[in-house]
């Protein structure tokens, strides 16, 4: 049996539901873009929606919900990389504004 055959045969119904949810979430992002809020608030809301979209795509379209070990490996590794990239924010702030905490 191939791994493709080994997958749970959840049928197209589940995929369709996830697809509709993704369309709705994408539409919400477009609605947020027209809200009368600050750029940082807009960014936060859009990012939350994008993360939910990505989670749905990873779990159901890419079938990570069917393999617990792989799920934790992928999510753990990716989150670690993304958190590592955030170090740059402090450095960018230092370059632009100096280092007030060092004075």
């Amino acid at each position, binding site marked *: 049996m*191939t*791994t*493709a*055959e080994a*997958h749970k*045969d959840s*049928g*197209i119904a589940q*995929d*369709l539901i996830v*697809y509709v949810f*993704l*369309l709705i979430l*994408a539409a919400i*992002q*477009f609605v*947020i*873009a*027209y809200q009368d809020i600050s*750029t940082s608030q*807009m*960014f936060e809301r*859009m*990012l939350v*929606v*994008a993360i939910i*979209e*990505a989670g749905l*795509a*990873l779990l159901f*379209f*890419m079938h990570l919900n069917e*393999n617990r*070990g*792989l799920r934790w*490996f*992928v999510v753990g*590794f*990716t989150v670690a*990389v*993304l958190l590592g*990239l*955030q170090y*740059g*924010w402090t450095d*960018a702030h230092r370059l*632009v504004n100096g280092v007030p905490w060092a004075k």
Partner: protein
Amino acid sequence: MSQADLSIHGLVSRSTENEIMTAPTFSVPAKKMAMWLFIIADTATFAGCLVAYGFIRTYTPNWPRPFHSITNVALMTFILLTSSLTMLIGVQSARKGDKSGAFRWVAITAVLGVLFAVLHLREWMGMIAEGATLFHNPWGTPLFSSLFFSITGLHLLHVSGGVVALIAVGIRYQGGRYNADDIEITGLYWHFVDLVWMFVVPLVYLLNLSH
């Protein structure tokens, strides 16, 4: 003492040793695991680009907001999301052994990918006609154009590569050289391209929409 230790001391049979040595990581076949590792690495690439974009956008005064309409990007998003659905149907057809059905849905996915690329290029041409290039931006800081063309260009490159992969794997699957797993692995890549777009749209397009 573990089985590996026993193997070293010659206490387990050669067949058991082979089973230990060939046991796939996370019960995932090597080809699929390789695709997941590529996806993780590519996530870091896109995340690096988007985080760098975030730094520059945050610390550049008077960041331009040149987009007036969301019609094109909304249509592109709809097409890419729909292509993920058609890819899923293609994978399910392949699982059932329906070769012509799988090939048909994979081909539809590739066509949607081409349509996405055409819309993307049309948008680029419109911006270039207005004077935007990789090093020049008529609406303000040239950093906007550099980042816009770099990030969307990198994504477009992935879509184009995906279309080529879909066509190649689809043809070889129909010809019997590839199996359902290969269709599924190509599908993983295609869904990843879709997933990246979910972050590119809000950060690069919607946050730069003029009100």
